[in-house]
């Protein structure tokens, strides 16, 4: 039986009715219409469905929508502020961190979650953190370069 739940997605409140078995991933894509979040492996390994739930990096394929009632979700669509790309999005363009693009939303959301928790990670910390996001195109180095470019921008404002 469907249940009514409330989600705040990218700062906007939604009330939707979902079957208990509906994944957060599918609620975002099918009920709310935000298709930036991708379904890859469906078992929490590939990272394509990465979102933030109350600021914590989460596989949206491994959590029921109903279990997120009342929570605040950030997806790739929430990264653009006032028409401006997030510095991570711009860096992925500038450094070729995105090729076919399928994994890119998850990559960028994952990197964002890291930089929100730790604006000055070491390269090793970035590598370790991003190990949960698979990419079949770039060979990873360009992704690392993209994230590190933003880390270096942060270093300019290290206080």
């Amino acid at each position, binding site marked *: 039986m469907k249940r009514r739940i409330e989600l705040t997605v990218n700062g906007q409140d939604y009330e939707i009715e979902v079957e208990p078995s509906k994944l957060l991933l599918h609620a975002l894509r099918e009920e709310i219409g935000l298709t930036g979040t991708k379904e890859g492996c*469906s078992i*929490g390994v590939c990272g394509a469905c990465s979102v933030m739930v109350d600021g*914590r*990096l989460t*596989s949206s*394929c*491994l*959590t029921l929508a109903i*279990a997120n009632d009342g929570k605040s979700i950030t997806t790739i669509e929430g990264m653009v502020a006032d028409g401006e790309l997030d510095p991570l999005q711009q860096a992925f363009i500038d450094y070729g961190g995105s090729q076919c693009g399928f994994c890119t939303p998850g990559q960028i959301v994952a990197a964002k979650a890291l930089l929100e928790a730790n604006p000055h990670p070491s390269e090793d910390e970035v590598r370790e953190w991003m190990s*949960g996001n698979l990419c079949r195109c770039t060979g990873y180095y360009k992704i690392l370069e993209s994230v590190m470019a933003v880390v270096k921008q942060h270093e300019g404002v290290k206080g």
Partner: protein
Amino acid sequence: MLDFEYLEPTTVEEACTLLQSYGDEAVLMSGGAAVTMWISQRLLAPEAIISLAKIPNFDYVRFSEKDGLTIGAGARHRDIEMSPLVRQHYPLLYETFSKVAQPRIRYMATIGGNLCTGDPATDPGTSLMALDAEVTLTSTEGKRVLSLEEFFVDYYQTALKQGEVLTEVRVPPPAEWAGWSRIKFTPRTEEDFATVGVSVALKVRSGECEDIRLALNSVAPVIVRAHRAEEVLRGKRVTDELVNEAGEVAATEVEPTDDMRGSADYKRHLVKVLVPRAMRQALERIDG
């Protein structure tokens, strides 16, 4: 369309009562990572899911010199990894939890959920077993406390009885377990499950091994303690020969199977190599 009730008790008592009334038809969910995947794959089709997520104060990580470390079953892997108390008093646990899958999963999955899946390929139970941890199981009848060796029964099977909830993990004070090592062998990628995992805790005084606890994952239907390998060292003056012998003996105590991470023979060989390596690392930590 798979349908089930989604129940969110706000106390352990309420969860136990619900669990009792639904019996086999209900599944407990904690962080949800494993249960959600099994539902998606149609491996589970419960009538009800009883979520533990709304129970307050279920995710604590506490330490006292007298009682050691107590962890609420709802604590996430990341909570344990990031706890300064764990880092300070239980470096073996810090090392172990910081290598479970990758950060995204560590933010989701809880320690209670991990142990209750009874998956022999996961890491936390191995190091908890090496540190002599015990789990508290709570039901409407009361509580009982089991060692992890008692708790892990068979492949994906634990000693949980109908109506029981794993509520707390306790690790004794670390006092004299100065020597420790964790080796998680992952030849493919860092965030993979271990091909073989070894955790060892050692008490050594004046070159003599006073006590030792050795546990391994991914090598048998359950996470196992290698008792006979421990006996090779216990009460003896530690030598290179004995350490190597312990590896040989440990390899006779495991029952690995062929899978995509390696053949049974390969894994047994790894046990022979990694157990002595772990013991040497543990000894080096004692010598400082």
